């Protein structure tokens, strides 16, 4: 009886007994695939560029048109593919980047473990590392040239010097990432310090370590090119410097774009290794911390 009454009351309150279905608003950007959004930005960027240059708002010596840049890219690309002098230069720069990165990983990781794992390192070494890190590292380039000459070594040194610090910081932060429970668990299992480091602290810290590696990968490229600007040599940076001094801006642009491909390749390589090694980590696109 009661039930019937409630039902009928409910019925009279509403005009119809249709389902309450309504459309929730969805933000437009959420309905657009990522690649379309990216192309949109690219088109707007290049369109503005074309507009600014073809209207003569800026001198072609300062900013070439997109078309000039593209045609120069094709020229440079042909030179690279046919094994011309540009390929030789690019190969030198790639070697600098690889050696510099390898050196930075070896030194950065070792220092990171020293600083992150030992009380001595944290107390006595870390302050000096922070002090050096705050220095403008590029300013050391002339010193490296004086010490190591105009060859590839001085560029490798500067590249490694710049890339080392983020790796130190990433490693040290990674070793502190394991939570209190995990530490306590390892203690109750009677684990040695080495076991705790290898079986718990290092794997727990891999996400932070890879964050450091990614920042380092970006820095190592900058270090190698800066080294070439300031210390000569036969690398890609030298090509850029020469092109710029000849006011050949399309060439500068296309060389930078090819160079960025090398940087991107290195970054993607680190990211691929991370995804394989840290398979349990949730991904988020485009961020250093979680990427």
């Amino acid at each position, binding site marked *: 009886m009661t039930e019937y009454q409630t039902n009928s009351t409910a019925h009279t309150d509403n005009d119809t007994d249709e389902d309450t279905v309504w459309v929730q608003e969805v933000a437009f950007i959420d309905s657009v695939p990522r690649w379309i959004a990216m192309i949109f930005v690219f088109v707007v960027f290049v369109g503005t560029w074309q507009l600014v240059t073809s209207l003569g708002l800026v001198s072609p010596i300062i900013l070439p048109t997109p078309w000039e840049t593209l045609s120069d890219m094709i020229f440079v690309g042909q030179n690279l593919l046919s094994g011309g002098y540009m390929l030789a230069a690019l190969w030198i720069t790639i070697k600098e980047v690889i050696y510099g990165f390898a050196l930075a990983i070896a030194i950065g990781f070792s220092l990171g473990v020293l600083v992150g794992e030992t009380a001595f390192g944290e107390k006595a070494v870390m302050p000096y590392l922070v002090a050096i890190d705050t220095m403008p590292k590029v300013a050391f380039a002339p010193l490296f040239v004086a010490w190591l000459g105009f060859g590839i070594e001085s560029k490798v040194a500067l590249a490694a010097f710049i890339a080392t610090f983020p790796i130190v910081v990433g490693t040290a932060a990674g070793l502190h990432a394991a939570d209190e429970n995990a530490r306590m668990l390892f203690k*109750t299992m*009677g684990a040695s310090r080495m076991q705790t480091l290898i079986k718990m602290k290092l794997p727990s810290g891999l996400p932070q370590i890879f964050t450091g590696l990614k920042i380092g990968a970006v820095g190592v490229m900058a270090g190698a090119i800066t080294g070439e600007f300031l210390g000569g040599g036969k690398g890609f940076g030298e090509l850029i410097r020469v092109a710029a001094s000849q006011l050949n801006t399309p060439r500068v642009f296309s060389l930078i774009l090819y160079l960025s491909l090398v940087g991107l390749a290195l970054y993607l390589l680190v990211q691929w290794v991370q995804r394989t090694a840290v398979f*349990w980590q949730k991904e988020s696109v485009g961020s250093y911390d979680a990427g």
Partner: protein
Amino acid sequence: MAEETYVGAPSGAPVYQLARVGKTYASNQVVALEDVSLTLNKGSFTSVIGSSGCGKSTLLKIMAGLIPPSRGRVVLQGRPVTGPRRDIGMMFQQATLFPWKTAVENIVLPIEIRDGKAAAKKAMDKATELLKVVGLEGFENVYPNELSGGMAQRASICRMLITEPAVLLLDEPFSALDELSRDMMNMELQRICREQDATAFLVTHSIQEAVILSDEIVVMKPRPGRIAEIVEVDLPRPRSLDMMTTPKFGSIVDHIRSMLDKGEDM
């Protein structure tokens, strides 16, 4: 697992004995623990309850061999506890499973640490058996990311049991779970402890949880941390959740609550 006949009442032999244990932290001269004497018998379930600062986590750390006492004797199975030991099993608030290891690999980790990889490999079968005991059959090769909170805690029970410890130290093991899972896990814990004839020591904030699980409840007072009273719980075993509505259960809970309230005033 335990084929020997289970001793229903906690009348077994003493397993863990503490006598006049005290702890004063050197850094700030705070007396964290004063004159704690306690005996855990084989197959018994003991809980410790008290407000924060009553020294229960200090007590647990001393019992786990993680920190030394300042005074008193701490003896497990006839041998003084002077560090972490194989015959001490421990479980924490968080399951603390490592995401790069599968469920079985996590469970045999204590063996891997103590005896090496080869021994850990041999223990895989035993780990699989234990997973069956806690109702996680078929989850051997699943990574922790794919386990729910309750399932993860079940796996961490297995990890605690793999070394066949003489005493289980449980540090608020299910407090991170929702209440429904928590009740269920407590009943599971009771069943597993009975099957394994385990001697368990539980730190908890929940009076209900302590009463439903324990043979004895150690009520502690703060400043300095000390035992206020040891309450016997003579509810029949096995316990079930509907016992929580009985007058007897209620009166024990009331008694402990009044003890704890008194502790607050001091």
